[in-house]
C-alpha cells in the first residue's frame, strides 16, 4: 500500500515523514553542522574523583602548534560566567512537595562549567583547549599541567549518606542535601501494628546511563556586532536550552539563538544544558571564531548525565487474607557531585504503592551528594525503581506467606469503581481498567500454558521462569507549552511548537493531528521546533509531555482556526457563521452544496482589504497552555526467561506487554516506543551499570567495552498490545506512551529470573542480574548465608 493511499489521521499507523532523510543519510545531527572558520575545543577533565586543584599551568599548552586558547575556571570567573541554573525540582503542582523534615532549606551545590577550587568527580572539566584542529587541541590538552591534592572519595549511595562520610562540600553539614518525611507515619504504624505478615526488601537500583547513540556535539558562533550567540546543539528542547545558556553566559535570552535539527536519542540524557555547550559559546566570543566540540563515547560515559541510583529499604504489611495494610521504608537517591536534579526521587516515592489499594504509607526520602557524575531523570525517572520495589515485594510476600502471586495482585489491585483514587501521598489516579489490563497481559503472555513450557525447558537442562508486573506512571514535567498553527494560502500548514523530536517521530504524529482536525493533506503539514528565533516558548521533550501537551495546544489552535475560518467563509459565501459547517478541510454552506476550502479562506484573509480587523491577516492561531494535571499511563507486562543454571546466563524468551495510552495517535510509533522502552528496562535488569570503583571513584565502565547494553541477540520479538481507556484528565483522553515500556520492565524481568530459580530456594537477585550473580545466588541458596540475598 502506498503512503498516499493510507489514511493519515489520528489512530493510523502512518509511515514517518522524517524517515526519508534518515534512511538516505541526509539527516542533520549536531556533529553534521560545520561552520566556516570553525575551530575545535577539547576538554581537559579531572582524573581524580575528589581533589583540590592546586594549580593549572597552561603555558606549555598555549605554546603548542595550532592552540588558540586555553581557558580555566579563573578565566571563567573573570569573564563573569554564572553557575548552572539548576532547579532540583521541576515545578509541577501535581507532584508532591518535598522539604527537609527539620525545616531547614535545601542545600544547593553550585556548578560552574569549569571546576573551581575542587574537582568532585572523574570527568569534571578543569580546562578547555581551543585549537585549529581537533588533533591540535588534543595535543594541547595533554600539555595542560594540573596540580591536585587528592582527597578521599565516596561514590556509594548508602555510604555517602553516613554522617562520617567524606564531605564533598565544606559548606554543607553532610552529603545529605534533602531529608524528607513523606506520607502518613501514624496511619502506617497502625497498619503495621495489626499486620499478620510483614515482608521486607532491601535493594539498590543501580546507576545506569542513557547512552543515546548520537554523542553530544555543539558548535557556536558569536556575532560581535549584534552580540548574539548562535548555538547548534541537540537537546530535548531548544527554548529551554536557550534560557539555560543565557543564564550561564549572563546575557539576555534574546542574545542567544539555539538551533537543532535531528537529535539522536535522548531518554532524559539531553534534558538539561551541559557545561560544554556554555564553554563553546564562551570560547567563540573569546577567540572570535565559531568553536565546535564533539564528545567521544568515552567522554559520554564520564560526562553525560546519568540515571537511577536509588537505595531502598521497604516493608509491606498484609493482613491474614493478603490485603495490603501499609508500606514504609527509606529511599536514598544519589545526586552526584552537584544538586542538579532530585525529580526521580520525588516522582518515585509519590507512587511507591503503584495501582494497589494501600491504606497508609510512610517513606523517608533522601538525596545525597557523592563523587560521581550528576544524575537526572532517565527514561521514566523514578518510577521504574519504585515499581520494581513494589512488584518484588508482592512476589516476596506471595512466596514467604504462601499466597498465589496473581491472586495477591488481583486482591489488591484497584478496581474501576474505586477510581479516581487518592494514594497515600495524595496522588490522584484518574482512571483505568487495571484488572482488565492485567488479565489481558496474562492471556497475551499465556500464563496458563507456562507450566508446560517450564517442563519442556527442564528437559533441555534450562530453568524457565515467568514474572508479572503492573505499573503506573506519573507524567508531569514542565507544565507550560505553546503551539502556533498557521494556514498558508499556498496549501501549507506550519506548526511552531517547543517540543523537539529526539526520535519520537513528532513530524509525523503532530502532523496527523493537524490532518485530522483541519482536514489538510498530511504531506503539507510542517512541524517547526528547533529554532528559537521562531519558537519562543516550549518545555521540550521529556516526562511524557510531548504528545500530551502538543495535542492540547494544536487542538486549541485548530479550533480557533476553524472558528475564524468559519466567520471568514460566512462572509465569502454571503451567509452566517451558524450556517457553515467545517468538514474535511472545507467550509460547507448548509443545504446549498456551496463550499470553500481552508486554503482559499486563508488566501482571502490576507488578500481582501475590507475585512473586519479580527479576520484580516494570516489564518493563524496559537495556544499557550499550562497543564497542571498529571497523566497516568499504566499497564501490565509479563516476561519469561530461561536460565542456564551452570553458567547463570539468562535468555529472555517471551515478553508480552499491555499498555494503556488512552488514545494512540500513531499506533506504529506507540508500539515502537514500547519496544524501545522494554529494551532499556531489560538492559537495566540484566546488563547495565555505571561502575564506580569504591576506593578511587574511578569509572570502570567507561566505554562500550565495559558498559553492556542489549544487542539484537539479547532480545526476543515482543508481543505488545495497546489499551485505550481515555483519560478524563486530558481533553482528548491521551496518556503518555514513551516511558511505559521501561517502567515495569525492571520488576518483571527480575520476578521472572527469581521464579526460574525458585526451585533452588533463591529469593532475590540484585540488578543487573549477571551470570555471576545468578550462579552465586544458586550456590548461596543451597548453603544459606545472611549475605545471600544481596550479592
Amino acid at each position, binding site marked *: 500500500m502506498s503512503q498516499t493511499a493510507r489514511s493519515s489521521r489520528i489512530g493510523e499507523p502512518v509511515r514517518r515523514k522524517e524517515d526519508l532523510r534518515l534512511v538516505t543519510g541526509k539527516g542533520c545531527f549536531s556533529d553534521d553542522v560545520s561552520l566556516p572558520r570553525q575551530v575545535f575545543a577539547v576538554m581537559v577533565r579531572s582524573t581524580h574523583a575528589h581533589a583540590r586543584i592546586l594549580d593549572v599551568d597552561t603555558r606549555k599548552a598555549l605554546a603548542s602548534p595550532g592552540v588558540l586558547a586555553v581557558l580555566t575556571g579563573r578565566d571563567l570567573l573573570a569573564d563573569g560566567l554564572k553557575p548552572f541554573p539548576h532547579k532540583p525540582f521541576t515545578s509541577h503542582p501535581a507532584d508532591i512537595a518535598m522539604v527537609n523534615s527539620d525545616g531547614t532549606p535545601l542545600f544547593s551545590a553550585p556548578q560552574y562549567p569549569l571546576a573551581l577550587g575542587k574537582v568532585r568527580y572523574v570527568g569534571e572539566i578543569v580546562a578547555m583547549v581551543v585549537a585549529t584542529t581537533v*588533533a591540535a587541541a588534543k595535543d594541547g590538552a595533554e600539555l595542560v599541567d594540573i596540580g591536585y591534592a587528592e582527597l578521599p572519595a565516596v561514590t556509594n549511595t548508602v555510604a555517602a549518606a553516613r554522617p562520617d562520610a567524606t564531605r564533598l562540600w565544606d559548606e554543607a553539614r553532610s552529603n545529605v542535601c534533602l531529608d524528607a518525611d513523606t506520607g502518613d507515619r501514624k496511619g502506617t504504624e497502625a497498619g503495621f501494628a495489626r499486620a499478620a505478615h510483614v515482608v521486607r526488601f532491601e535493594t539498590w537500583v543501580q546507576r545506569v546511563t542513557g547512552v543515546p547513540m548520537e554523542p553530544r556535539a555543539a558548535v557556536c558562533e558569536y556575532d560581535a556586532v549584534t552580540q548574539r550567540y548562535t548555538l547548534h546543539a541537540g537537546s530535548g528542547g531548544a527554548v529551554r536550552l536557550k534560557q539555560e545558556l543565557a543564564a550561564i553566559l549572563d546575557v539576555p535570552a534574546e542574545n542567544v539563538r539555539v538551533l537543532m535539527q535531528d537529535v539522536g536519542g535522548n531518554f532524559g540524557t539531553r534534558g538539561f544544558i551541559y557545561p560544554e555547550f556554555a564553554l563553546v559559546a564562551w570560547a567563540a566570543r573569546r577567540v572570535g571564531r565559531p568553536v565546535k566540540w564533539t564528545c567521544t563515547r568515552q567522554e559520554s560515559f564520564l560526562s553525560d548525565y546519568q540515571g537511577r541510583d536509588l537505595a531502598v529499604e521497604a516493608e509491606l504489611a498484609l493482613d491474614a487474607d493478603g490485603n495490603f495494610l501499609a508500606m514504609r521504608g527509606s529511599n536514598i537517591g544519589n545526586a552526584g557531585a552537584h544538586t542538579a536534579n532530585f525529580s526521580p526521587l520525588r516522582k518515585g516515592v509519590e507512587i511507591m504503592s503503584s495501582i494497589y489499594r494501600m491504606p497508609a504509607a510512610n517513606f523517608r526520602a533522601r538525596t545525597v551528594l557523592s563523587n560521581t557524575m550528576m544524575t537526572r531523570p532517565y527514561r521514566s525517572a523514578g518510577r521504574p525503581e519504585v515499581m520494581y520495589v513494589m512488584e518484588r515485594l508482592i512476589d516476596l510476600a506471595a512466596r514467604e506467606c504462601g499466597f498465589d502471586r496473581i491472586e495477591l495482585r488481583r486482591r489488591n489491585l484497584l478496581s474501576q469503581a474505586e477510581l479516581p483514587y487518592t494514594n497515600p501521598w495524595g496522588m490522584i489516579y484518574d482512571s483505568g481498567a487495571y484488572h482488565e489490563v492485567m488479565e489481558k497481559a496474562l492471556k497475551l503472555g499465556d500464563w496458563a500454558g507456562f507450566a508446560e513450557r517450564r517442563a519442556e525447558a527442564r528437559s533441555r537442562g534450562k530453568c524457565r521462569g515467568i514474572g508479572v508486573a503492573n505499573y503506573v506512571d506519573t507524567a508531569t514535567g514542565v507544565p507550560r507549552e505553546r503551539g502556533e498553527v498557521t494556514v498558508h494560502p499556498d496549501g501549507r500548514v506550519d506548526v511552531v511548537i517547543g517540543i523537539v523530536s529526539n526520535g519520537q517521530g513528532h513530524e509525523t504524529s503532530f502532523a496527523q493531528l493537524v490532518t485530522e482536525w483541519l482536514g489538510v493533506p498530511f504531506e503539507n503539514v510542517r512541524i517547526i521546533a528547533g529554532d528559537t528565533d521562531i519558537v519562543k516558548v516550549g518545555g521540550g521533550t521529556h516526562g511524557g509531555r510531548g504528545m500530551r501537551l502538543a495535542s492540547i495546544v494544536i487542538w486549541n489552535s485548530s479550533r480557533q482556526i476553524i472558528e475564524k475560518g468559519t466567520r471568514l467563509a460566512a462572509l465569502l459565501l454571503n451567509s452566517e457563521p451558524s450556517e457553515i459547517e467545517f468538514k474535511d478541510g472545507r467550509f460547507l454552506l448548509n443545504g446549498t452544496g456551496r463550499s470553500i476550502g481552508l486554503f482559499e479562506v486563508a488566501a482571502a484573509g490576507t488578500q481582501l482589504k475590507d475585512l473586519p480587523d479580527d479576520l484580516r491577516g494570516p489564518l493563524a492561531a496559537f495556544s499557550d497552555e499550562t497543564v497542571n494535571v498529571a497523566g497516568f499511563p499504566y499497564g501490565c507486562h509479563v516476561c519469561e526467561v530461561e536460565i542456564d543454571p*551452570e*553458567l547463570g546466563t539468562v535468555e529472555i524468551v517471551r515478553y508480552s506487554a499491555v499498555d494503556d495510552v488512552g488514545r494512540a495517535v500513531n499506533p506504529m510509533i506507540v508500539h515502537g516506543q514500547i519496544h524501545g522502552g522494554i529494551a532499556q528496562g531489560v538492559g537495566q535488569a540484566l*546488563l547495565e551499570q555505571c561502575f564506580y570503583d569504591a576506593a578511587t571513584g574511578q569509572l570502570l565502565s567507561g566505554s*562500550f567495552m*565495559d558498559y553492556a547494553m542489549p544487542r539484537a541477540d539479547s532480545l526476543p520479538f515482543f508481543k505488545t498490545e495497546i489499551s485505550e481507556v481515555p483519560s478524563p484528565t486530558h481533553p482528548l483522553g491521551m496518556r503518555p506512551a514513551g516511558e511505559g515500556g521501561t517502567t515495569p520492565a525492571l520488576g518483571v524481568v527480575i520476578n521472572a529470573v527469581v521464579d526460574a530459580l525458585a526451585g533452588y530456594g533463591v529469593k532475590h537477585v540484585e540488578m543487573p542480574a*549477571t551470570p555471576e550473580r545468578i550462579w552465586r545466588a544458586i550456590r548461596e541458596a543451597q548453603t544459606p548465608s545472611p549475605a545471600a540475598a544481596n550479592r
Partner: protein
Amino acid sequence: MYDFDYHRPASLDDVAAIISAHGDFKVLAGGMSLIPTLKLRLARYSGLVDLGGVESLKGITRDGNALVIGAMTPHATVATSPEVERAIPALADLARGIGDPLVRNRGTIGGSIANADPAADYPAGVLGLGATVWTNKRKIAADDFFVGLFETALRPDEIITAVSFPLAKAAGYAKLRQSASRFALVGVFVAKTARGVRVAVTGAGPSVFRFRDAEAALEKRFETSALDGIRVEADGLNSDIHASAEYRAHCVGVLTKRAVWAARSNPA
C-alpha cells in the same frame, strides 16, 4: 591519534626492509585492535606498515596433515572456508564467533595472535591445537608463542606470515561472552591431537593457558564425565567488573565440558 607515516608495501621483503630501517614502526594487520588503541592515544608510533597489500600473506592451504592459514586471512574467510570446515570444523566455529561480522571482514588471524589479547578467541585455537606460528624468521610452537598479557615471543622485527594447524582427531570450542565487549569472558578450546589431548583457556587468565589437569583426565577418557571434580584454581585468574576469578574458574570447568561435548559431536 598521533600522526604517523603510512606505508603499504606489496611484498614481505619490503615490509621487513621498512621495519628494520625504522626502529619504532609498527605493523598493521586488520587494525581491529591497533586502530582503536591509536585512536585513544594509548600508543604512539612514528610509522605504520600496513600488510594489507602483501597478497602472499592471504589464503588457506592444506599441507598434508596441516592446515596453513596466511597471517592476513580475515576471520570471515576462515569462518566460511570449506577447506577449514573439512579439516578442523572447530576452528571455523571459533572464527564465526569472533567479534561481529564487520570485524570479521577486517580482522586477521595474524593480527589477533600478535596482539595476544587475553580475551581473544584465536589464541585458544592456536594453543589448543598445538599450532605452529610461522614468521619471516622462524617457526614458533604455540606453547612458546604466548608469553603473557599482550605479550608474545615475537621479536620487534619479526612478522607472522602464517599459522600451521595440525589436524586434530576431534576438537571443540565453547565460550561465554563478556556482555559488553563480546570478547570471551572465558573460552575453552579442546583438541584430541596426534600428540595427546590439549585444552587451552582464553579470557580467564592474563594470557591464554593450558588446563593440564583436564588434559590428563581427558587423555584417559575423552568424555565430559572424565572432567568431574577437575577444577582450575581461581588464584591468578582475572577479576574485574564483569566477573570474579572464582566465577571464571567455575566457567572454565563448565566450558571445558561443553567443548568436549562439541568436539565429540563434531569429529574432524
